[in-house]
């Protein structure tokens, strides 16, 4: 029989439901994998072994009583530490929340629990989701399971690495500017950012409120559909969550879309893009074509990427994104002040202002400080129109481009990141360099559109290459089916990094 940790989440759920294995066995298998691989990967902030075993036993007991289990019955999952849980800590990988214990659980996580999933632990991330490599974690970086000298991507690096290294059957991440899709690409797994408002944000520690979404990070497209179906839906606790019926993403998943029109956004294929990645995406287009799809050239003028003679990359969308995200972040992070929860300075303070200032200086990392300050700056008196309001207008232009493009195509095909996983420390010298990692992902956040990142093969150096499908609002079903088409046609799915392929059998 296949090793439990070589099963997809879908297969594992089926196996547990059938009685071919127990949830306890699954949790033991994953805890074993964690014990072996965590030292090298450092994907988890906290592994909740005792609790996971308790949950697993409870699920098994119910199953043996003949009760019907939820869609994720007994399946061990990892949760990005940006999501509040009443168990363990919720740290956002920040010193300022190092000991925070939330009195409530995020809606999306609660839904997983209602579907009888087992939570293995909370995963590492860039502090407060600010970063593209998980190097901004206030604790330690996470390593890419494909090459531990490289980054797993960010900010959901821990979740992506956990899934890639088979230390969780699937995971939840969050995506504000690409934080699910880019680490998924770097780690060779599937990641989806749903339409803004598809999944409740209640319990998601806010970074860029008008951009954030929670989404699945999984081994394959079917798992992604499974998780999305569980976590999607309305929520009275989130005013921005759309109360729209959740389709059965699994029902027609394997049915190819006849006459699929695949948009090819010319602006995304600039000199900024690594040649191997460009080639892989082109090949993907050919795959779609050979399966009856039509490739349509579309234009997204305001998402265009320019590279000047000095190699400097410029993108309106990146500028727009960072202004909006940082402004919202500066406000969302104002609450971390040492008064009601979280870290508080032990230094003597003369007054409340000093209490705030020292607490935040001690508790926030450099990148967080930079973004909070930039956000404060762009919102401050005299600058609002020039920056924030201007960015909101450019945002509309970006969205209009997509709306226009989608009159000619059903999905857009484009890269996820300009390179494959870079080395730890390679891009940390200059903040701007890191921001430019997001050039292909941020537009979808600005426009509120869903995006699916899936593996399109390996580079010559053996690193995963990701491709991205973007769709109109609430087109998750189309994206998943299109992704599945590619998966089936190429067999590129559930790529295994060497460390996870080696005998994990004890």
């Amino acid at each position, binding site marked *: 029989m296949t090793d439990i940790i070589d099963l997809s989440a879908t297969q594992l759920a089926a196996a547990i439901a059938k009685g071919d294995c127990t949830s306890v066995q699954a949790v033991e298998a994953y805890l074993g994998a964690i014990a072996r691989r965590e030292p090298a990967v450092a994907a988890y902030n906290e592994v909740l072994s005792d609790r996971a075993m308790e949950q697993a036993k409870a699920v098994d007991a119910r199953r043996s009583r003949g009760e019907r289990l939820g869609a994720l019955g007994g399946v061990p999952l990892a949760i990005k530490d940006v*999501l*509040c849980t009443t168990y363990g800590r*919720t740290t*956002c990988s920040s010193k300022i*929340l190092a000991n*925070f214990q*939330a*009195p*409530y659980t*995020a809606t999306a996580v609660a839904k997983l629990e209602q579907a009888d999933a087992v939570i293995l632990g909370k995963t590492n991330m860039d502090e407060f989701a600010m970063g593209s490599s998980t190097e901004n974690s206030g604790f330690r970086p996470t390593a890419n399971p494909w090459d531990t000298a490289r980054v797993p991507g960010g900010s959901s690096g821990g979740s992506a690495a956990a899934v890639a290294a088979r230390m969780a059957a699937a995971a939840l991440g969050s995506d504000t500017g690409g934080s699910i899709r880019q680490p998924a690409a770097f780690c060779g797994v599937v990641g989806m950012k749903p339409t803004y408002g598809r999944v409740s*944000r*209640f*319990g*998601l*520690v*806010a970074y860029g*409120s*008008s951009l954030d979404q929670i989404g699945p990070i999984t081994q394959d497209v079917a798992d992604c559909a499974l998780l999305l179906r569980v976590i999607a839906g309305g929520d*009275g*606790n*989130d*005013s*921005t969550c759309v109360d729209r019926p959740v389709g059965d993403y699994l029902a027609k998943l394997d049915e190819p879309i006849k006459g699929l029109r695949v948009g090819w956004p010319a602006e995304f294929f600039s000199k900024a893009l690594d040649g191997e990645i460009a080639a892989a995406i082109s090949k993907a287009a050919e795959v779609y074509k050979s399966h009856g799809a039509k490739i349509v050239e579309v234009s997204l003028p305001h998402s265009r990427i320019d590279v000047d003679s000095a190699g400097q990359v410029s993108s309106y969308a990146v500028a727009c994104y960072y202004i909006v995200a940082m*402004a*919202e972040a500066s*406000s969302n992070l*104002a*609450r971390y*002040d040492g*008064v*009601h*929860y979280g870290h508080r300075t032990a230094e003597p303070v003369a*007054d*409340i*202002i000093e209490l*705030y200032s020292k607490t935040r200086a001690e508790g926030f990392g450099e990148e967080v400080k930079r973004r909070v300050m930039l956000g*404060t700056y762009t*919102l*401050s*008196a005299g600058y*609002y129109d020039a920056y*924030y309001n201007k960015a909101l207008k450019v945002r509309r232009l970006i969205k209009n481009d997509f709306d226009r493009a989608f009159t000619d195509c059903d999905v857009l095909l484009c890269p996820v990141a300009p390179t494959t996983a870079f080395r730890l420390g390679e891009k940390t010298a200059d903040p701007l360099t890191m921001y430019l990692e997001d050039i292909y992902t941020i537009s979808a956040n600005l426009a509120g559109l869903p995006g699916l990142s899936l593996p399109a093969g390996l580079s010559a150096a053996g690193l995963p290459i990701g491709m991205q499908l973007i769709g109109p609002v609430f087109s998750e079903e189309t994206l998943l089916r299109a992704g599945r088409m590619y998966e089936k046609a190429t067999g590129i799915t559930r790529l295994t990094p060497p460390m996870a392929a080696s005998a994990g059998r004890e």
Partner: protein
Amino acid sequence: MIDTDTTVLPLIGLEIHVELATETKMFCRCRNRFGDPPNTNVCPVCIGMPGVLPVMNRKAVELAMRVGLALNCTVSSFTKWDRKSYYYPDLPKNYQISQYDLPLSVNGYMEVPLSDGTDKKVRIRRAHLEEDAGKNIHDHPAHTGVDLNRAGVPLLEIVSEPDMNTVEEVMAYARGMHRLVRWLGASHANMQMGHMRFEPNINLHITRSGRTYKTPIVEVKNLNSFRSLERTVAYEIQRQYAAWGEDPDGYSLDKLGKQNLGFDDERGVTVFQREKEEAHDYRYFPEPDLVPVMVDEAWRQSVAAGVGELPLARRARYMADYRLTLKEADALTQDAPTGELLDDAVRLGADAKRCVNLLLSRGAAIANERSCTIAEIGISSAQLADLVKLLAEGKINATAAARIFDLMVASGEPPSRIAQREGLLVVTDAAALGAWVDEAIAANPQAVADVREGGKKQKKAFGFLMGQVMQRSGGAADPAEVQRLLRERLS
């Protein structure tokens, strides 16, 4: 104090914060209730914990709309929310969700009656919704305690134009607003509970020898009683005039702009507050966690229908229809239910004037003792109507009516039963009356003599004998009959 060629025109605007009478808070479903033990009406949302989101209270929006409509405002068809950033321990998110550029209501006015009989029209610039902050407790000398029970309570901020020119106008406006929000059921406006807070902004336009000087605008924060409002405005006018006097060209609006002060209640002076001195950069931007509210005509109409007759309109109606004096009509239009009590009784056939007499004599006295409104003392319109009818039919006299009123309040029994039981029904029986008259005559020979004699003592003596008869009858004798009989027997 002010020399003859100088004129001083105070320009005063008032910002009033009103806590709305909802069951729950603005953005979460914790209870909106004063006086509970600290931090018992709190949840992750109003504590501002990581990951929480606000969800708007529909009732708060509707109460706010109701007030806006009653103030003749335009209720915006599209209104949105903004974050107002500042750091303070009673503001857990370190931003307040409020409304900046597209508030719920704009451009209204309130007619404020003044003591000279004229009406002052005070324009309302805007009325918007926001959340209240918690409370900082300063009992301990070395630190401050924070109670978040009040954090997130719905607040309606009503901003007037600087249309008021005297302390009287400010107080009339403030009291008028106090009455209005209670009238509409929008707020309990209990001053002790901090339901209403005032922030006056004051400056002076001083004209001397043809030249006009404008003093800097002073805004005084957080006054929570009518008394402190009155004292503050009066004090500021004097203080600014004096400060201007010392330096007419220097103490000016264009040089010094706007200042925020507090009011030291003990010393009765406005004061500079060091910690709050920093000019706030509120960094307003649209609240991403809340979607806009669109008010269509149907919704607006349904809220407008709930506004009903307003205090001044009702007062005018009472003076016209019931022929009440201004004073009487005013006393009956301090709150809506008292007028409803009166109107319902009239609808049941009772004579308005007689109802009013009872309500403003016994009713007001009892209400005063209990510190409640006349409507709250507990009589129903049916009981009032029945009592007044007994009086109108001559079955009881005025003294008896007053007595029955009190007993009715205490026991809730119907007035006729009380009258019967207490023997207060007017006695018209000639024999009984005759007996009492004879007794009174027999017992008071001197008074009888004075009456028969005529002259100065006659009237008083007659009155005395009347009183004696009434007393013997326990107040139940029909005074007109007694009078007739007495005259008869004394002549």
